[in-house]
């Protein structure tokens, strides 16, 4: 047994646990997807755990995040309820949307997951709007828009960056650059320039971080959150990371040929969960990894059991809640 290293950043272990939990939940979904009871599209975030967990680390429950079609990781990292998430993916009445949204519409008001919107770019101005509401209310909450590299091709992203900058709003644009829009690589979609240049062009402070290094992400985010809370306006952070599995669905799809196996393996070598585990092991702070995994698996099993036990929503209620 290695001696515990007291110099290791005390944030690392809880961040690791959060990442591991995300990983095991997404893999459990992938494993069970073939059972055909999760009858909605799923966009898994395996490989991108450090971005979600690091970005949410400095946030308070009353801060708000906005997510996208690939929202599981953000939802869980912000503290969204696992049972409500799995209930939703299973189309159950117990789901966070009561079965009305599915995997791409996760929200949890208590945890500050304001909404997930499955139209690329669409949730970005909503985060700016939440930030405007915070500024109008005169409190120090912040809003975070999670977006991908692809959404920077959407006009509304540029409009939102501009508007947030000119109004000085407490919002952070957190870009997860996973290099692909479905099967199309970044180089086919955007010119060769840093994504942070887009934020800079709109007058925002920017930071680029290794999106697989959870502490680096958390540090960049802390700086941005602190700036926003002090009324100093928005920040754009670009976190470079990689989606391991297919765009939509439970499988690996490197066989399609849109990216190379070598590229995938190079990113897998930099697995955010495994590299963090190695650091913790080396510091003697992860001797209980097997127990941790067991505990998380028990939580996941219980959540799946609860989701499957919950009833489907009453068909007669399909027309309810059109208007408030």
């Amino acid at each position: 047994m290695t001696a515990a290293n007291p110099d290791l950043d005390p944030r690392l272990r809880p961040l690791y646990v959060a990442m591991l939990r995300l990983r095991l939940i997404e893999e459990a979904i992938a494993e069970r997807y073939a059972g055909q009871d999760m009858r909605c599209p799923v966009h898994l975030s395996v490989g991108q755990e450090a971005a979600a967990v690091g970005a949410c680390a400095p946030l308070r429950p009353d801060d708000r995040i906005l997510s996208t079609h690939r929202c599981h990781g953000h939802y869980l990292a912000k503290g969204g309820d696992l049972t409500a998430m799995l209930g939703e993916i299973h189309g159950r009445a117990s789901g966070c949307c009561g079965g009305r949204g599915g995997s791409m519409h996760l929200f949890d008001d208590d945890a500050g997951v304001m909404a997930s919107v499955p139209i690329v770019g669409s949730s970005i101005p909503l985060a700016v709007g939440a930030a405007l509401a915070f500024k109008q209310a005169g409190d120090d909450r912040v809003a975070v828009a999670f977006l991908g590299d692809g959404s920077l091709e959407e006009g509304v992203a540029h409009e939102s960056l501009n508007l947030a900058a000119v109004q000085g709003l407490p919002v952070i644009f957190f870009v997860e650059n996973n290099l692909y829009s479905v099967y199309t690589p970044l180089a086919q979609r955007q010119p060769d320039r840093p994504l942070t240049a887009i934020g800079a062009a709109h007058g925002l402070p920017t930071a680029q971080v290794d999106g697989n290094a959870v502490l680096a992400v958390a540090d960049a985010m802390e700086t941005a959150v602190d700036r926003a809370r002090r009324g100093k306006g928005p920040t754009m952070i670009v976190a470079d990371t990689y989606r391991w599995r297919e765009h939509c669905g439970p499988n690996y799809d490197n066989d399609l040929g849109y990216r190379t196996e070598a590229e995938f393996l190079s990113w897998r070598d930099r697995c955010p969960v495994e590299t963090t585990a190695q650091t913790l092991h080396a510091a003697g702070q992860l001797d209980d990894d097997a127990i941790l995994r067991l505990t998380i698996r028990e939580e996941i099993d219980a959540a799946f059991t609860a989701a499957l036990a919950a009833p489907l929503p009453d068909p007669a209620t399909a027309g309810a809640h059109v208007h408030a």
Partner: protein
Amino acid sequence: MPEAAAATDTRILTAAEAILEATDQALAADPTVFVMGEGAADPKGIFGTTAGLVDRWGPDRVMEMPLSENAFTGVAIGAALMGRRPIVIHQRVEFCLLALEQLFGTAAKAHYVSNGRHKVPLTVRLVVGRGWGQGPQHGQSLENLFAAVPGLKVALPADPVDAKGMLLAAVADDNPVVIIEHRWVHYVSGPVPAGPVATDLTGPKTLRRGDDVTVVAASYMAAEALRAAAARANAGVSVDLIDLRLARPLNLEPILESVQRTGRLLTVDLGHKTLGLGAEIVAGVTERAFGALRAAPVRLGTPDHPVPSSRSLAEAFYARADHIATAAGTLAGLPAERVAAVAEALIAERREVPFDVPHPAFKGPF
């Protein structure tokens, strides 16, 4: 304006003045209300409907916007989701087309997809251009497009009372409400209560009782229909004139009740006749009151081409009082010469007024 004006004190205002008054009162009544739009805080103040408000309430409550219709509509929705009550203004309906994804996607569906937890108390004012050569991309009303989406409410005020009252009702409503605001309705004047009196967002109102023909019109077409109905009455046809007011929710009950009496239905669309509100109304009445119909329903509306700019090309584009009177008279079975006489009288009545302006005093802004 007096802060505590009695609800019953009425003055004669134009609809534009009534909108300004409603906005001011909404800002005064609730600190979560704010206005955003391109031109909301500029010297012309959206055709006068926001004039002076920035001086009174400041730039944080009356927000000038960059040319980012999509983003600022989404920003308003995000703020509304957090409990604010934004009033978004697009100076032309067409500007809002850049923001439809926000409106149709999130605003219309947030309450539903959250299983009733989220609310979007958003008001979106969309101004319809007409006349003075507005042309193909400044003259569409498109109420049928907005009304096609469940989750939205779509209001079409036709007079100053509703211009004020529906705006106040929209701001108080917990749903996204789109107000289709016709530029020529801005000039319509009438008695308006001085206090912050909301009108309902539930359905049509009867402007004139009659037994021979049911005419359903909305927004500026209700004003044209009112002139037609008055002229028709002189020729012995009594028109039951219904101001539709709401395109969604579409409340057909008063129309069905009217058709049960008259047996004849004429609809007058503000926008295109094809796939217009009239098509939905005629279909609904035919499904539910087929036996009451004594003649095939008739629809008026703009033809299947864009509105051209030149006044000569645009003259026949819009349904006018004389067209409505002709259709109503024909539907009622009047002899052709009596139908024509009323139409000619209506044309003569505004012979001095060019067809591309609402009245002789019209000098812009457009």
